[in-house]
């Protein structure tokens, strides 16, 4: 067997797994990094995104538009939750954890009661592409592209837009930001709904690759939270990208050699080891390295 196609196949799997982890964790890590709220209803937000995408897709809306719709719908729902409940829990990490858990129970079971246990699935868009002895799903290649697009978009939003700068200021020093006339409450609401919307977007994008069911959110819980724990909350983009790449490198290799279950076990072990070495996650270590470098060049 040729070694070339094998390497390309490994690289493809590495990036496909990383794309999955990235999409599963992005909304969570934004809410955590910007607002210090751990959103245990994250899986359910993803589930709602998948539901919106499925329902609109089967109503005849093109898939691309139904994905965008699911972002908007889940962002609105997330914003409502922020206004009603989450805003009472700023500064109380554990309280927020428990209350979002309650929300997730209600959303999961509520969806089961409203829509029943099964939904028709979405056919994976795009065909497959053959290279050597391996074939690749075009859809996963598109997802990898979408992830890169999202990274660029987020970088642009948080570096150049007015909202992004105000959000960063609020994250660093909420009191000072308030004194300078930033409405931190508004920033928090927008951030939470963007995070929820991204969760919905992730759910919608991943929905063709899995079964749509009310408790499908649960299967995102372990990978998404491990990605966030490893990535840390110091810098959203570094954390999400770095940790999804590292974890996918672990998962791809171990999973290929020993099976999917041991791939997930390896994820947990990696998380335990990473936080033993870097208690604040990859992003904190990376940020420190960059800060040091920029200081030495000045």
């Amino acid at each position: 067997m040729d070694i070339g196609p094998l390497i390309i196949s490994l690289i493809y799997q590495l990036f496909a797994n990383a794309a999955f982890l990235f999409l599963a964790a992005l909304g969570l890590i934004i809410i955590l990094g910007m607002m210090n709220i751990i959103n245990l209803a994250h899986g359910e937000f993803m589930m709602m995104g998948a539901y919106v995408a499925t329902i609109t897709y089967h109503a005849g809306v093109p898939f691309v538009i139904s994905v965008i719709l699911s972002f908007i719908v889940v962002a609105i729902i997330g914003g409502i939750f922020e206004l009603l409940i989450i805003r009472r829990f700023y500064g109380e990490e554990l309280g927020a954890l428990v209350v979002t858990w309650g929300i997730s129970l209600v959303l999961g079971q509520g969806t089961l009661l409203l829509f029943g246990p099964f939904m028709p699935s979405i056919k994976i868009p795009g065909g497959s592409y053959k290279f050597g002895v391996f074939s690749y799903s075009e859809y996963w290649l598109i997802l990898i592209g979408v992830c890169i697009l999202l990274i660029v978009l987020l970088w642009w939003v948080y570096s150049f837009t007015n909202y992004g700068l105000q959000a960063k200021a609020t994250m660093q020093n909420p009191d000072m930001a308030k004194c300078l006339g930033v409405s931190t409450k508004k920033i928090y609401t927008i951030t939470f709904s963007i995070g929820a919307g991204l969760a919905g977007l992730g759910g919608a994008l991943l929905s063709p690759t899995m079964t749509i069911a009310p408790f499908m959110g649960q299967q995102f819980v372990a990978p998404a939270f491990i990605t966030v724990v490893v990535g840390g909350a110091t810098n959203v983009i570094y954390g999400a990208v770095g940790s999804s790449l590292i974890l996918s490198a672990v998962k791809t290799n171990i999973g290929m050699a020993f099976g999917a279950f041991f791939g997930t076990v390896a994820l947990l072990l990696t998380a335990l080891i990473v936080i033993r070495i870097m208690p604040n996650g990859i992003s904190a270590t990376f940020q420190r390295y960059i800060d040091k470098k920029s200081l030495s060049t000045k």
Partner: protein
Amino acid sequence: MKHLLNLIDGDKDIGRGNKFWAGFFLVLICFFLYPTFVSSFRASNTAFYLLNIPMGFGLCLIWGYCGILSFGHVAYYGLAGYAYGIIAGNLLGNSWGPILGVLGGLVVCTIISGIFGYFVFYSRIQKWIIPILTLVFTLLLETFFVQTSGYQWRVGRVLLGGFNGMTNIPFFQIGTFEFEGYSFYYYCLVIVLVLFFGLRILVNSKFGQIVIGIREDELRTEMLGYDIRFLQCVTFIISANLAGISGLLYVQWGNYITPSQMGILQAALPVIWCAVGGRNSFIAVIFATIVLNWLSFTLSSQGNQYALVIIGTLLVITMVFFPRGIVVMIFEKMQKIR
């Protein structure tokens, strides 16, 4: 003896003084007399509410008193249950089997929670990571036990059983006396009582004071010369063992265990009991555990699918309007009126 009574009556839990204890013993007498009025089946059902209380205690100790939230106490519940099933099932017919099973279950809980606690507490990770890691740990255990179907997953004579779980787990027995029906109810009641008094002594003792100190201010407690990593780890192991006791009682009650006992929905339950009752009070946890278990049992046995929605809503409402727990806040209101 006087010293111990003072510790039991200490100020680290709600409910002190003669009036409270008079009421407490009155209720206790009702609990002791309860089986004489109902059938063995009903008594056994009520024992199910009681057997969950130790896990509530465990979470109350680690969350309410030590300030560390664990979402994964059901992992130890399940581990202890499976360990008991394996050991007692292999020694079927031997009257020492169940006792060795109980010891084995607790040893497994101690070892696993010790390893987990070492990684978590000795790396001084941020507080919010612990609930997530514990949750992921129990989900992994669930996945592991689900895939253990078939004859290759056999320990001695006992099949692990995969998704359908382990069946035919023997009752607890001392000598030739098996605990089931009425006697199981009294067995649970006595264990809950012993644990309740033991924990009241623990939290009011010097150890408890330090643990509460860690909850209030980690850095300051450490500066006073205590090794907080070690103390957190010990508290975590104790509370994992409490969850393990619940798991042992569960398998002795129902004679089976399934991996879904370690699933995400089960993991939510002890957190809900503690949050709704009041997380810094053992007596409130007893109260909330019995009432909420009764509620969800009644709702789901009528085929009502709203049980989870109702319990989830209750949790959200409690967290928003009664952040310290419904039972605790009502109790404090009553004391103010008096």
